[in-house]
């Protein structure tokens, strides 16, 4: 009997095989399969959540031999850093399937790709074997490439290719680093737990490995100046693709940053801590300012991702630099929670922009106006998500950013200049709300329909969780904190 983790991990893959087998099935059936399978996966993730984690490392482990000759095995499990991301992924895929139920164009391929992507995403977060991790990490690229190229907007081919080449080339250094860690471990193994418990590379050997990993994860996260693929990919991707890309796949970068870079080369990470911190601060501020200059709503949200992910880099760098374990735990708590918050908030925002684009066929802010009157449900949902994104207390980003900034002040007070970002994001979101939703409604959009049931079902869970996480972050932080408080490096 396979473990709960493996069932959750491979359910979407089985669903994909089922859809491939049912080649003649109508689109509705195919979408129903997608919704049911992702719903079951979500149930699996919730059950995993209810089993929780433990303080001594990874929980809910499963392992069997795969390539014993080289020390690679099928190893999966979760801790307080990965479990919230598994739950987040399962939830985002579930609501994405609901949102996508309208797709009639090659729906078989669409559902298969999304289900494959779901297995790849959950696999990336649960893999405890470096080879397994790398396989999932790369498979996700392929699926996302076809999502963008197949169902994207005007200039999708170029954006898809750029995304694919950028992140593919970006991930090669990680492979080198993995090989380095493998060769450094004694006996040779790809077991990530061994690498974490006893970092195989130390001293000067660790630094090149760290640099290689940093490069990969900086492209993935993305961090300035490696972020140029992101706006292009987001703008061209279909709404569902953007939600998964921003909500789930960007977290591969920051998750990898903690799991690989921080945990497997902690000494080198500390040595390079200031440089990484500077990178995070610059990235966060740059993303905020670049977003402020946008007139395309989707690009604007894409750039705020650079801003929010920048805070995570800051948090991880502060965790590496902190000498006091309590401060380190605070910084990492904030960073991991920020990943969850960003997934929920940005997911909701990309859905909303997608819904706007479905109706108006444009994303230019200046072409809208007064929509709060015409589509109140859509308008107020956007206001809620936007205020969450600008870090308003009581909504998801506040507890995460508060912890990151608090830890930053205690370790490197100067770096707290990054907090300027919350004013700039406030400015750009208020500008967006004002242009799109306030003012007198335009004649042109007078007949625009408000959200329908499908859209409410897709958005509702995200908005409810945004509030729940903002008011009572403890239900997620307790899981995260169990692991971060016990980390020793």
């Amino acid at each position, binding site marked *: 009997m396979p473990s709960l983790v493996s069932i959750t991990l491979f359910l979407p893959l089985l669903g994909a095989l089922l859809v491939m087998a049912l080649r003649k099935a109508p689109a509705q059936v195919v979408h129903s399969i997608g919704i049911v399978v992702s719903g079951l996966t979500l149930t699996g993730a919730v059950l995993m959540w209810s089993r929780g984690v433990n303080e001594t490392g990874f929980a809910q482990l499963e392992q069997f031999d795969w390539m014993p000759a080289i020390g690679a095995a099928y190893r999966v499990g979760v801790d307080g850093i990965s479990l919230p991301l598994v739950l987040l992924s399962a939830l985002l895929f579930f609501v994405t399937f609901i949102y996508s139920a309208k797709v009639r164009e090659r729906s078989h391929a669409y559902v298969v790709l999304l289900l494959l992507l779901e297995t790849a995403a959950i696999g990336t977060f649960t893999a405890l074997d470096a080879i397994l991790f790398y396989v999932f990490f790369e498979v996700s690229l392929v699926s996302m490439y076809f999502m963008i190229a197949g169902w994207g907007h005007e200039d999708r081919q170029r954006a898809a290719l750029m995304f694919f080449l950028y992140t593919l080339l970006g991930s090669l250094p990680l492979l080198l680093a993995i090989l380095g860690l493998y060769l450094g471990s004694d006996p040779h193994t790809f077991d990530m737990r061994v690498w974490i418990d006893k970092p195989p590379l130390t001293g000067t050997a660790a630094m090149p490995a760290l640099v290689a990993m940093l490069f990969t994860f900086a492209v993935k996260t993305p961090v300035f100046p490696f972020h140029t693929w992101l706006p292009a990919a987001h703008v061209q991707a279909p709404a569902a693709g953007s939600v998964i890309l921003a909500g789930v796949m960007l977290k591969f970068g920051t998750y990898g940053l903690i799991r690989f870079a921080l945990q497997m080369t902690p000494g080198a990470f500390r040595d390079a801590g200031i440089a990484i911190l500077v990178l995070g601060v610059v990235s966060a501020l740059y993303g905020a300012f670049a977003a402020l200059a946008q007139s395309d709503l989707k690009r604007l949200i894409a750039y705020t991702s650079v801003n929010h992910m920048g805070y995570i880099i800051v948090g991880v760098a502060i965790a590496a630099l902190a000498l006091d374990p309590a401060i380190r735990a605070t910084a990492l708590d904030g960073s991991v929670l920020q990943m969850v918050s960003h997934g929920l908030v940005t997911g909701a925002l990309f859905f909303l922009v997608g819904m706007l684009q479905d109706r108006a066929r444009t994303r230019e802010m200046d072409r809208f106006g007064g929509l709060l009157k015409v589509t109140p449900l859509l308008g107020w949902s956007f206001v809620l998500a936007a205020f969450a994104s600008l870090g308003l207390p009581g909504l998801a980003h506040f507890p995460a950013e508060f912890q990151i900034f608090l830890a930053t*002040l205690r370790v490197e007070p100067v770096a707290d200049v990054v907090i300027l970002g*919350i004013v700039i994001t406030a400015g750009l979101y208020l500008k967006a709300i004002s242009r799109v939703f306030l003012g007198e409604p335009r004649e042109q959009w007078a007949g625009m329909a408000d959200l329908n049931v499908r859209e409410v079902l897709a958005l509702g869970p995200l908005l409810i969780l945004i509030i729940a996480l903002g008011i009572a972050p403890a239900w997620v932080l307790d899981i995260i904190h169990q692991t971060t408080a016990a980390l020793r490096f």
Partner: protein
Amino acid sequence: MSLIASAILAPLSAAPLILLLRRLPAALALLGAGVGLLASLGLLVDASHGIGDALILPGLPDLPLRLVATPLTALLSSLVAVISSLVLVYATGYMKQDSEKPRFFAIMLFFVSAMQTLVLAGDWILLLAAWELIGLASYLLIGFWYRRPGVRSAATRAFLVTRSADLGLYIAVFILIAGAGSSDIATTLDTGGRAAVAAGLLLLIAAMGKSAQTPLHDWLQRAMAGPTPVSALLHSATLVAAGAILLIRTAPMLPPEVLLAIGIVGGITSVVTGLIALGEPDLKRLLAASTSSQYGLMLVAVGAGVPLAALLHLIAHAAIKSSLFLGAGVFQHSRDSTALTELAGAGRDRPRIFAGFALAALALAGIPPLSGFYSKDAVIAAALASTKAPILASLALAGTLLTGAYMARTLRVLWRGSGKRRDIAGLGWMGAGLAGLVILAIFLGAAFPAVERLLSVRLPENTLAQVLGLSAALGGLALGWLIPARRLLGPLLPWAQQGFALAGGLDTWMVRPALAVARGCEQLERQLYAGVLAVGRLGLGIGQAVRRSDDRVIDGLIFSLARATVNLGHRARTLQSGLIHRELAVTAVGTVLIFVPLFIALLIF
């Protein structure tokens, strides 16, 4: 449920109920606010008997959230509850004709509960959260009529200015938590040394934003775009009060240099915004400038080291200023405008409303026995007793003089002249709310000794302060009534009417640089993107070059090799002519050619 939770949850739970039911919004709002009021008064009664209350809620790891009812917080909570309930009574009439009542009342209740959270917060995280949430609520209320021109920029500006200043609170909170290792406000008040100076100055910045102190006073006047009950609430016991409340609560921690800075900021604000009020042609904007000015006086009291005087003025001002706004709202409905030129004689049309307005105006000016006299007296006495008396007291007296002048000017405009009177719907409710507040504005002074007992602090008695304060108030009233503002201000008039904006104000110093940086980033962004594309093209170019070289060089070589072979074949074919004798000759020559080297090789080795 505990009283402390009810004070917050009663209004909060009524808000979604109103949105869901969409019926009887005003009744539900009054019910929610009423239950909250009872809970707050219960807390106050308990506090007066020495019973405190506290509630600890789960928050961040190791940083729980706390609500505490101390004499000070219970008093503030009651103030918020009383004023907001009366404003809601008034709003029942004021909003009678509005089609979006549910949204209005829901946000108002949300606002009230956020403010209750702020005053009852016992830890910094909850205070910071409530601080930002009242910012959100005021954004939504100022932008309530979001379809009207000018409203969205007013709402956006109010939120952005206060949020920029809020960064001060964020950093101050981090410093205090880092220093004390706890987010409990009471614990962090022991902070001393450089941390206290830094945190104190940062708290001052946050308070300047919320309480609209110079140079951040501009947004408050623009915030008049919202419905009048909103202004009445914003300016009295809620949003704007938060800044002063923050400084009153942290006063025990503040070192002398910070106190001096607070006093000077407050004093300058009370004069600058007093001048603005004197030159202002719009009634609601005049009252808004006056709010900044009065909060300036409270900051003077905090700076002089007597936060109790600031608290008393806050209480008196809350009742007075909400009365003034509610009166102004009636005049606005009756003339459909808030411009003073349009309002000429509006008071004479409605003598009872005018009487309430005038009493509140005199109270604000500081005429005995109205409440403002006692509180202003306390402020001036505090300034006189401070070590920096020459600066603080002269600024406070100037502020008092200006208060008298602009209130007299307003009363004169409202009483003189004439205009068209219009009937107003819902006047009963409006009158009831106004009456309640005016009664408070008149008699609250009598409760001040009880407040002193409650907080166990005595105010300094000072006859000189009473004399000086009263003469400044009377002098101001006389000046304002007798001499037109134009002549009083003289060359300052155009500057005052621009709000004393420093070289373009906020736009020049904050918005434009931010937008310039944003444009710079966007340009860099384009270049980066072009750079990546160029690298991509370079790759493609190399690929094409390789293909071309394949075509020409390698393929060429291969093809020419092939051609050479074929040619060789052709030549070889000519050898095979089919003529026997030639074939034999070729064979013989070939055999010789093969065997000769073989022989030679055998001979050598």
